[in-house]
């Protein structure tokens, strides 16, 4: 039988946004002794209106097992089979904070979009460094320890 498939088919040269988010989620757990952890939720069937046209959708949630698994959705992403662009649906406070702090321009309705991995990482960095994210994590840590 002749193999019609190209030989380089299994070569993957880019990390998926999901892989990057999983790595970051795991790092948060390490930083907080797993008191505050981040979980990725597959929201492909539903998801925010702004991501309605994307077949792959994930929510990035901060959660705290010691507080009855309290959950706060920090942001959601949506992407197509081509992966990029990746569209973000952000918490409105975070969006307000990071507009102007990143060279990635928000799209319509203030929604952020990353055209490549570099931009995706830059937006993530801004989200994680925002005052709102820090405030929520600190609040969870403090309540979990009290």
């Amino acid at each position, binding site marked *: 039988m002749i193999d019609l498939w190209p030989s380089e088919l299994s070569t993957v040269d880019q990390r998926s946004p999901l892989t990057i988010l999983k790595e970051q989620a795991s790092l948060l757990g390490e930083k907080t002794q797993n008191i505050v952890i981040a979980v990725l939720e597959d929201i492909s*069937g539903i998801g*925010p209106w702004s991501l309605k046209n994307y077949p792959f959708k994930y929510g990035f949630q901060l959660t705290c097992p010691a507080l009855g*698994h309290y*959950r*706060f959705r920090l942001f959601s992403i949506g992407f197509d089979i081509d992966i990029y662009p990746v569209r973000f649906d952000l*918490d409105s*406070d975070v969006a307000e904070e990071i507009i102007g702090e990143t060279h990635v321009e928000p799209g319509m309705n203030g929604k952020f979009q990353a055209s490549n991995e570099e931009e995706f990482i830059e937006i993530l960095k801004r989200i994680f460094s925002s005052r709102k994210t820090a405030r929520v994590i600190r609040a969870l840590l403090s309540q979990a320890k009290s």
Partner: protein
Amino acid sequence: MISLLFWNVGRLSRHALVARLARANDADVILLAEVADEPIDLLKELNKTQASYFFSPGIGNTKILAFTRFSDQFLRPCSETDRLTIRRMRLPGLEEILLAVVHFPSKLHWSERSQAMECTELGAEIRKEEERAGHQRTILVGDLNMNPFESGMVSAAGLHAVMDRRIAREGSRVVQGREYPFFYNPMWGLLGDGSRGPAGTFFHRHAEQEAYFWNMFDQVLVRPALLDRFDFKDLAILDDAGDERLVKDSGVPDRDVGSDHLPVLFRLNLRVAA
């Protein structure tokens, strides 16, 4: 009976009025949206004559404020976004409930279709939390920025909120093989000038072919599991705060005194049967 008061304060400083409203209606739980006042100023005013209220802060959500006449440990947030806070209200000797409070995106920025789509997300979020809690004793209250008859409110995958408690008592409905629990929406019974009280909670006159004038954006939805604990007569749209009118002579909300929304008050009997 537990009295709950919801009010979209319309981004105006109204701490003194909120306190008068709470006292006049003996509110145990005060839920506020679009708040201009700092929680501390509200708390000072609420406790001016007697220190009876506590601030029950959200963790991720800071836009919906909650004040209670019991410690905040009995109203812990369990799931939040910037527009939604779902709390477990677990008071000693009373039935535990889930209290979901929402401030939905406005029609100024979102189409009816967008709101309907977003309702599927809200409905799913509530169902997830109910699954976690192991019960469906849920109340959804807030400024939904939709009328009770709009698609997002009534569609099965949305909030599935029906106007008749007998239908709601069926519990759920299967559509295309998927089961969706009902909400009972008592706000239908308060629509229009044939109802007791104001014809809606929000008035908007605009030069368009289609104008409702009165809208029922601020709503209370009750899951079937709580129907026996909620009496329609214990639900009201408030047009005064004791001696103070919140509406103009024409009956529409007076933003110079209160807000462009009217508050909603309801009571629940959560006593555990002996």
